[in-house]
């Protein structure tokens, strides 16, 4: 029996189409998953269903009644509850109060009787408290009953939000990323909890999450959204193997990119590098005033091979508020190297970049850049040392003209470069030099951001989600720019959702999972073995073994013990791992199998 019926819903914000012709059916008692890459419109659809937004087209029916004119509180009373991606608990109220409120949110008693404390109010109050405690007990939250919601760790807060949604006696609960910020163990626990909740409170659920192990495990049926449209739907197993879905998450593999790259960009001999303070051997190469595109490639690779890394991160942990997003991150980038960070949303890639560039504080660990310890330095000081960070969303000033933006960069970094250098790389910006940045297209804006970063004459460029919200052709052009940067000896650390494109340009990649680095591999290896990455994005049926096994089992189907594989992929020092991978390549056998053999030997 259909409980929620979404029909051809469309949502526009000005020119931006967030949802387009989305139809969806949810049956009573079902847990329905809603997945899709960043910006696919999942949260927008949630907001349309819960009434925070009114869709510009289409209609939504709940239990055969239209929700069109119902404000959010009316929908809540009809039985739709929700949780929020960015925790929306009532922080200054206790956990108990947080749950009592939805129990009598309709306010069937009047305010005066509450103020006077009449018996009528008293009994209602007592009943609400009792029910709230019962729910908290089921969710194993008893120890937190009288704590202020705002003082609790994020994981507990997520559970309180779930409890609050249930307290309303809903028929349908919309769960917006309940596993965000949880580690693997907590996610596991959450999956069990969701099933318990469905049994105990007889609710249906609509679940959005980026953690595929959770979605695949608990959902009965899955809808995949991409660019505001339903891309695919089906049972978890069907969706996981759907090539369209994999493409949406990983980006289309575009083999022509790397080949065509050299031809289409016409010999950009660009960046002016005035000789700054020379720290070590690498900068001698970088100090050359004009770097021809082709010749430097081999040189930079030679440099990358020897010498200490340009950027060296060890044991880095960081987070926001009570939430620790990344822990024990260790990575390095050599001069002239392009390194990609890939992994599902919320795996900690962006946070890592932010912690490196000093935008947020590192809680522990060390960041060394160009031979100096920059942990805890101010972001502007780090930027002046030659570490440029283009944040997600580009961080531009929309009302400033292109030229002003670039001049500002020159002034504030004290760079000696000439503005023409940027126009040489991005000729299109010269035509648009008087235009306000906010009126440019997304691709052009990204060019401005990159030009700005380049003018600061960086030695390392960190690009966060460069291709977000851009059309594929533009994305290709931007990726070609990375080749250009590399040729000039600028190292690039890349966070990218178009994984395949990123792997085309990258030398190495780190795969992030749950706030730490799960694998490190050469891009060539990852290109060959798509399964490895799709595992970290889409999870696998027998969660727990998941990705690690796939690495081990690749090729000949030799399955390694999951626990062992865990140690192989996560706890192994990078050097040993690389050696193992090399040996695996030489012998043509999976790395996991070799590791297993070695371990057996050690045991003997």
């Amino acid at each position, binding site marked *: 029996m259909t409980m929620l019926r979404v029909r051809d819903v469309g949502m526009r914000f000005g020119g931006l189409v967030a949802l387009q012709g989305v139809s969806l059916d949810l049956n009573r008692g079902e847990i329905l998953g809603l997945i899709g890459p960043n910006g696919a419109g999942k949260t927008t659809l949630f907001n349309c269903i819960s*009434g925070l937004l009114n869709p510009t087209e289409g209609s939504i029916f709940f239990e055969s009644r239209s929700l069109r004119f119902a404000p959010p*509180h009316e929908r809540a009373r009809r039985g739709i509850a929700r949780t929020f991606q960015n925790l*929306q608990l009532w922080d200054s*109220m206790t956990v108990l109060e947080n749950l009592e409120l939805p129990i009598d949110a309709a*306010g069937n*008693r009047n305010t005066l009787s*509450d103020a006077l404390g009449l018996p009528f109010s008293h009994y209602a109050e007592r009943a609400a408290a009792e029910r709230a405690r019962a729910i908290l007990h089921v969710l194993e939250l008893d120890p937190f009953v009288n704590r202020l919601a705002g003082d609790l760790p994020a994981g507990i807060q997520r559970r309180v939000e779930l409890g609050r949604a249930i307290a*309303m006696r809903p028929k349908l609960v919309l769960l917006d990323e309940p596993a965000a910020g949880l580690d693997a163990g907590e996610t596991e626990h959450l999956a069990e909890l969701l099933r318990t909740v469905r049994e105990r409170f007889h609710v249906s659920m609509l679940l959005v999450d980026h953690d595929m192990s959770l979605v695949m495990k608990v959902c009965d049926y899955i809808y995949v959204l991409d660019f505001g449209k339903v891309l695919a739907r089906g049972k978890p197993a069907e969706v996981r193997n759907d090539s369209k879905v994999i493409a949406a998450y990983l980006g289309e593999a575009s083999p022509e990119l790397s080949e065509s790259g050299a031809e289409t960009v016409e010999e950009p001999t660009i960046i002016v590098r005035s000789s700054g303070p020379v720290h070590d051997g690498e900068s001698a190469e970088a100090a050359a005033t004009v770097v021809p595109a082709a010749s430097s490639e081999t040189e930079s690779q030679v440099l990358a091979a020897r010498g200490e890394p340009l950027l060296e991160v060890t044991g880095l942990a960081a987070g926001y508020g009570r939430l620790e997003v990344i822990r024990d991150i260790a990575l390095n980038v050599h001069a002239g190297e392009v390194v990609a960070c890939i992994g599902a949303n919320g795996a900690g890639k962006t946070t890592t970049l932010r912690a490196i560039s000093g935008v947020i504080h590192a809680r522990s660990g060390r960041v060394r850049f160009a031979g100096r310890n920059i942990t805890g330095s101010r972001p502007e000081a780090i930027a002046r040392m030659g570490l440029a960070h283009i944040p997600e969303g580009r961080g531009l000033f929309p009302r400033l003209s292109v030229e002003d933006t670039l001049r500002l960069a020159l002034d504030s970094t004290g760079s000696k470069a000439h503005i023409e250098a940027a126009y040489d790389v991005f000729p299109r910006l010269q035509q648009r030099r008087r235009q306000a940045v906010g009126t440019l297209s997304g691709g052009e804006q990204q060019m401005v951001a990159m030009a700005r970063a380049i003018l600061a004459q960086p030695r390392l460029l960190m690009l966060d989600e460069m291709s977000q919200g851009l059309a594929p052709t533009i994305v290709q052009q931007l990726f070609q720019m990375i080749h250009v940067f590399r040729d000039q000896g600028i190292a690039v650390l890349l966070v990218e959702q178009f994984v395949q494109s990123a792997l085309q340009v990258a030398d190495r990649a780190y795969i992030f999972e749950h706030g730490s680095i799960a694998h490190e591999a050469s891009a060539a290896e990852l290109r060959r073995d798509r399964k490895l990455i799709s595992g970290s994005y889409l999870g696998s049926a027998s969660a727990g073994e998941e990705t690690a096994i796939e690495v081990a089992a690749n090729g000949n189907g030799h399955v390694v013990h999951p626990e062992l594989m865990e140690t192989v992929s996560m706890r192994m020092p990078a050097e040993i791992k690389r050696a193992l991978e090399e040996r695996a390549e030489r012998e043509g056998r999976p790395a996991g199998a070799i590791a297993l053999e070695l371990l057996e030997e050690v045991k003997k």
Partner: protein
Amino acid sequence: MMPGHIVRFAVAIVAFAILARLPVGLDQAFQFDAALALIWGFGILSLVLLTGYAGQVSLCQATFAGVAAYGAGMTVSSMHGGYLLGIVIGVVFATILGVIVGLPALRLHGITLAIVTLGIALVFDRYVFQDHIFDWFTGGTGGWQVTSADLLGIKVDSSQHLLAAYDVLLALFCLVSVLMVNLHQSGAGRRLRAIRDSEVAASTMGVNLTRYKLLAFAMSAGIAGLGGSFYPLIAGSVSPQPFWVFTSLQLAAIGVLMGVRYVPAAALGGLFMAVVPDVLTRYGHGTFMNRFNYDISFDWFQIAVGVLLILQLILLPDGVWGDMRAKLLHARGAAQRKPAREAPA
């Protein structure tokens, strides 16, 4: 009634018994200050409800009090009604204005709402309280004169029976305080606090935002008006000056200073606002140790409030009362925990 309610009423009665005796021996001016302290106390109490509970900003609380004061004055002086009727009409006027001011609050938040309410305060200050078009309401340039009045048979007028008026005000203040604390702990109060903490969460959990925001503004304006409607009684006349824009700003500043989330802060704030300027004008000049002449004018009060507000925001972010209360609770908690820990050993 729940045990909590009984305790609160008992505390209120004790507080009334103590505070009612407080201004007895003082001269008329200080007795007037004591009554005025309660009127501004109501003003801050209304902010506790509106800002402290429901999280809405308002910079026109003195306007609500003023409308009620003029309403009461008009009823008593020009319509020759009893003072009880005057109070009722004053409160009703203020409440209606509160609902009207609440309408923009359905859409606006924070600084924009502050500016809109400040605009309302300015309009009333300049174009209602001081304009001849509204003479029927304001009583013209001289304002309304209230020379003799009684409340349920108790003689309460400024010249002879200031203390009686003070007692009635105090009783009402204690009563409203208790009701507000009750409200804070009840379902309706929770809904208001939910709006303060997260509006989206409140609405998606079934709280009717329109209803509760308007209710908050109406109740708040009514409370401010209840205090304001006593003004003609204790001052003997109504004039625009006490209810001008600056008073509204001062109410907000002192409310935040004392701890806008807590009911007792309203009493502290009212006292501070009414008594300190008077003390300054009276004892602010003289000679210190027969040597240093000093002259602290009333204007210094404004500066002092500003400085204190900045200090409070840094040192006592939850307001004077809020942080004091936290310290007391902490100390009590520690004292209770100690024996408990020793018991098993």
